[in-house]
Every structure is written in structure tokens, then in C-alpha cells.
């Protein structure tokens, strides 16, 4: 065991060191290749300017390399595959696209995804905001924050297990071991098989993601809220606004930009996350979403690379407007410099 630890440690150190070494030595070499001598200011300036032209690419190199190989290349490959049949060998034109839009399951997934997109980012942001605001104002706020953040540390699969315990249904007269049903029963309701109620089961699944991601929203928004000038709140207090009004009319509008960032991040997550649906329902009872549909077409029973490629592309397409907006924002920020 000890030797394993030692060798693991060694590997870790070497890896991190090698990465640092790249940056260190590539810059060193650049400096050596284009020397700057004290004497001649003209040639020194020329070399410095050349360095300035090359150096960004040294900095960006590894990131670009990884992005291109690991993300751009698969995207391109996927795009090409989307015009081929299931084995990726026979060109079929737009057949896969045609199929997608006529497939019931696909339409169902789109519908469900829209539901998810409408609910989860909003809910996470809302709860995150409320918790951030409120915990800033009580002495045990940090404890509360930690608890809300905790689900972030749980894997999606683990989280699904946790929630299975909440939604668990026992038929007949058995004691309910699912908390939700136990509570429903306590109040005289009839226990339900929550995750199999079409349409509504989407929401029960969403709750899980909301439970996990609210911590993220909370952390970021709480930081943003601290950036709000105290004086604007004091001014509102003098203007006679109550806590509720201050929250909605003074604080929220001022962190609007951050809300947008959080919203975007969670939106993307919603489109990409599929573990929850996989473990909870695997898309049954009309709870299929695009990511799972893609997964199914990609791997289930040998896979169909063409159709899964179409779905993957559609997921990406769905986020494009949000991304365009984000890129614009990023560039606008840049202009401010």
C-alpha cells in the first residue's frame, strides 16, 4: 500500500511538474531566442515586440491543442457522422435529420427538455438567490450555506440514490419507506408512484438537479450580492421599502448580470446532464430527455452513430443562442479594457 501511495505521489508530482515545466521552459527559450541586450534599444525593442507576438501562442498553445483535439475534432466528426447510417459507413444525406423530427420519442424529449430548461435554471437561481440573500444576514449563515452546498459534492448517481429513497413507493398497505409518500399518507393522501406519473415525473426529476445545483447558484450569487453598494440599500430603506421590496426592486436588478451567468451555466448543465434521468427512470414514463436519447442511440444495442450524432448536434444547437449572447457579452467586456 505504501509503495502504491509513493508511486502515485510520484506520478502526480511529475505530471504537475511537467505541465509547469512546459510553460517555464517554453518562455525561457523564447527569451533566449530573442535576446534583449541593454545596449541597442532599437533591436531590443524589436525583439521584445517579436516576443510579444509569439508569447500569446505559447500561453494558449496547450489549451488550444486540447480544445481542438478533444472538443473541436469530435464535433466535426459528429457532424460528419450525422449524415451516415448507423454504422457510420453509408452516406444517407439528411435521413437522420428527417427521422429525428418524425420520431415520437424525439419530440417527447424536446418537450421535456424545454420543461427542464424552463424550470431548473429558474428554480436554482431563485433558490440560490434567496438563500444567498438570507444567509448573509444571519449568524449561522455559513453553516446554512455549507449545507446547501453539500449536494454539489455528491455525484449525480449518488444523488439519484438519495432521491429514490424519497420517491420510493410501496403498494397496498405496506408502510411507505419513501419520505414523500409517508408524508402524503400522514396528511391523508394516497401514496403515488411519483416517478411514473407522466408529465409530473419530469418535475420530480428536476427537483434532484435543483437540489444539487442550487449550491452553485448560491455561491456565485452570494458573491455578487456582496458587490452591491450598501448605500443603495440604505437609500431604499430611507425611501421606505421593506425587505421584500428591497430584495426584488433593488438587489435583484443589480445582480442581473450574474444571474444571467448562473442561468447560462445551469442551462448548459441541464442539457448535458443525463445521469439523473438514467438512474431514476431511464426515460420511461415519458421522461426522456435529449441527452439520454442520444446516449441510447449511441450505445444501446450496438448503437446508431448517425442518429445519436443528430441528437448531439441538436443539443448543441439548442444552446447556441445562449452562447452567442455570452460571447457578445464577453467581447463587450473586453472592449471595456
Amino acid at each position: 500500500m505504501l509503495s502504491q501511495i509513493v508511486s502515485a505521489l510520484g506520478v502526480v508530482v511529475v505530471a504537475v511538474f511537467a505541465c509547469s515545466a512546459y510553460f517555464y521552459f517554453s518562455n525561457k527559450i523564447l527569451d533566449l531566442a530573442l535576446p534583449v541586450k541593454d545596449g541597442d534599444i532599437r533591436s531590443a525593442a524589436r525583439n521584445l515586440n517579436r516576443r510579444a507576438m509569439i508569447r500569446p501562442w505559447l500561453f494558449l498553445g496547450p489549451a488550444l491543442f486540447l480544445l481542438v483535439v478533444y472538443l473541436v475534432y469530435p464535433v466535426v466528426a459528429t457532424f460528419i457522422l450525422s449524415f451516415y447510417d448507423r454504422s457510420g459507413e453509408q452516406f444517407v444525406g439528411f435521413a437522420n435529420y428527417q427521422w429525428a423530427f418524425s420520431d415520437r420519442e424525439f419530440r417527447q424529449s424536446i418537450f421535456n427538455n424545454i420543461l427542464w430548461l424552463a424550470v431548473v435554471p429558474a428554480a436554482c437561481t431563485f433558490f440560490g438567490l434567496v438563500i444567498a440573500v438570507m444567509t448573509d444576514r444571519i449568524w449561522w449563515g455559513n453553516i446554512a450555506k455549507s449545507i446547501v452546498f453539500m449536494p454539489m459534492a455528491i455525484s449525480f448517481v449518488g444523488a439519484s440514490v438519495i432521491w429514490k429513497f424519497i420517491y420510493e413507493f410501496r403498494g397496498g398497505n405496506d408502510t411507505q419507506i419513501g419520505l414523500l409518500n409517508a408524508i402524503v399518507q400522514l396528511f391523508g393522501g394516497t401514496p403515488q408512484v411519483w416517478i411514473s406519473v407522466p408529465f409530473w415525473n419530469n418535475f420530480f426529476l428536476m427537483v434532484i438537479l435543483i437540489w444539487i445545483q442550487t449550491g452553485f447558484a448560491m455561491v456565485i450569487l452570494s458573491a455578487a450580492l456582496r458587490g452591491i453598494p450598501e448605500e443603495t440599500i440604505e437609500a431604499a430603506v430611507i425611501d421606505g421599502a421593506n425587505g421584500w421590496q428591497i430584495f426584488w426592486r433593488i438587489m435583484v436588478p443589480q445582480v442581473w448580470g450574474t444571474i444571467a451567468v448562473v442561468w447560462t451555466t445551469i442551462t448548459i448543465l441541464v442539457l448535458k446532464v443525463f445521469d439523473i434521468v438514467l438512474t431514476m427512470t431511464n426515460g420511461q414514463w415519458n421522461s426522456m430527455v435529449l441527452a439520454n436519447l442520444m446516449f441510447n442511440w449511441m450505445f444501446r444495442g450496438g448503437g446508431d452513430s448517425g442518429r445519436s450524432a443528430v441528437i448531439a448536434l441538436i443539443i448543441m444547437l439548442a444552446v447556441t443562442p445562449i452562447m452567442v449572447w455570452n460571447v457578445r457579452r464577453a467581447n463587450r467586456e473586453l472592449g471595456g479594457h
Partner: protein
Amino acid sequence: MTLARDFFKIGPARLFVHFVVLVIVILWLIPTLGIFISSLRDKDQLVVSGWWTAFAGSSRTVASRLGQPDQQKQEGATYVIAGNVLEGQEGRSIRAFGTRVQQPAAYSAGETADLGDGVSLLVNSDGTYRYMKNAPFGPDDGGRRVYVSIATPPEFTMQNYRTVLTGEGIGQSFINSLTVTIPATIIPILIAAFAAYALSWMEFPGRALLIALVVGLIVVPLQMSLIPLLRLYNTVGAAFDAPSKTYLGIWLAHTAFGMPLAIYLLRAYIAGLPKEIIESARVDGASDFEIFVRIVLPLSFPALASFAIFQFLWVWNDLLVAMVFLGTDRQHLVLTGALNALLGSRGGNWEILTASAFVTIIVPLLVFFGLQRYLVRGLLAGSVKGG
């Protein structure tokens, strides 16, 4: 404190805040709490009663077997098999018993049940029983089933954790997980920070385009890239006559998959650093490399820490990427994989799922609490800038 910070403290509003936060905290805690308690319960009980009843004593009706005829003793005219149905279960007591499964509580403890044919049975609340017959017990009378209602005090067990923690190769896979996770957390941060710096503070053609590319790539679904990449790995592996599934491979994979978000978040922060500080350093003669290492890196530590938490959580909890790029053999199996293997071939054993959910959560939580201070500060500048 200024008033704005505690304006909620005025009157009932303050109570309301405490109340709301308490409700939210409880709502958020309940699922985790439930699973934590469940992980401490007996695996058979787990599926028959709610975890919230774990603290209350419960009553269960179970089947038990009486002794074999070879234990019988003759007492006068009656033959007796004596024993205890609660063998090895301290602290419990019998409420009632029965001999037919349809009426398992027909007799209360201490009562002698007449079972006809000269057979009778007495079960006391302490579990001792006397099984009596007015003739010798034959071989057919052996191991008769009786049903007893047992009052059980709350009980917890560490067995589930023992199973998980002593599972074969858990230690190894723990180390494997760390071997994967630590570089896969640090390397992307380093690379992304350099890139983010270049994208915020260095002038070069195509910068805006690159930013667009990075932001755009955040959306690429991970599953999509697995097969093309693995193919690439195999080609490269074959070319260098090296195995295609290596730590290096998975580090790079995790690094790349985390890269867009890392650059996106770090750039927001780094771009928000005061321009004058960087210009000062430039006037002081520092090259971009020196500015980055000596000024930007220390100043962005909070942002780096917060991203580190996200990346760490993601890598630590990942199973898919590890399986694809590192493989599932013992030497390379990560913790999530090892715990997964403890589950039977046909899927979830609740007790293992619950206990392992807690085992995996520990390290991320430690990391979270360790870096928490920086977390809030870290995203501050980034988010304010964004806003």
C-alpha cells in the same frame, strides 16, 4: 455592522428570515440525512421501514424455527423441545407468537398455545420457548416454523460501511482516484489560467474569435467525443507502442473537458484584475510570463481555488470518463468504479449504495471546506465583472 446588513433584524422580519433559512436548510439536509441514517441500518430493515422510524423502537414479525427432535427431553409424560427464538439477539423481546403464517400473532407471549394432537407451545417474552408433545417428537416435527412479533429497540450497524471499506481493492482504487483527480484538477487550472491571461491581457489577432470558440465549446456533450477520442488514443498508442489507457490519457481528457468552463470562469476573473497593476508590472519591465506568474497567479488564487473545487468534484465523481480512458482493471479502477463493482451484477444494493455515497462524499467535502474561504471571494470579482 451597517444597517443594510441587518435590516432584516428589525422585528418579525428577522424571525422570518431565520425561519425560512431553517426550512430551506432542513429541506436540503433531509435527503442526505435520510441516506446517512439508511446507511447505518440493517440491509433487510432498510427496505421495509422508513429511515425516519429508525430511532423509534419497532415491532417486527418474523418467522423462526424451533429446535430439532434430537434436542427433545422427556419430562414425565411430555416430551419437550426447549430453546430460545431470540438466540443471539440481545435487547429484544417477544410480544406475541403464532404457528400459522396467516395468523402470526395469535397468542401473546407467555401464553401456552394448544396446537391439537397433544402438541402445545409456550413462548415467553424473553424468547425462551417450550415445545411440548405428549408423545416423542418424530423426525417430521423437526424445525417447525413459528412466527413471533419481536419488539426491537433502535439499532444501527456499521456493517454496510465495513462492507464498502473492506471491499476488495478499495484502498488501491482510492489511491487511483487521487492519482487521477489531483493532476486532473491542477493541470487544467494551470493551462486554463495561462490561456485566460492571454485572452484577457495580451494583444494578438483573433482574440475575440478564440474567446467565442472557448465559450462555444462549453456546450459540447461529453458522450459525443468518447468514441472519436478513444480511436485517436488507440492510434497514438499503437504508434508509440504504448497502452492506450494511461493516466496521462485520462488527465488530458479531464483537462480538456474541463477547459472551456475553466477558461470562461477564470477569464472573467483575470480580466477583472485592476489594469493598473498589470501596467505597473509592465513598466517595471516584467514580461508577460513574469506578470502572469508573479502578479496574476497569486492575485487570482481565490478564483483558481473555486474552480479547483468544481473541477475536483467533477473528476472525483466521474465514472464514465475514467472507464473509457483508464479502463476498469484493478490496477486502474477508480473509487467510483470500485464501489460500483460492489453492487451485484444485477444492480443496486441499497445498503451499499447508501454507504458508498457517503464514502465518496467525504473527500470532496474536505476539499470544499478547505477551500471554502476562497470560494466566495473567488467568484466575487468574476461575477461582479460579469454583472
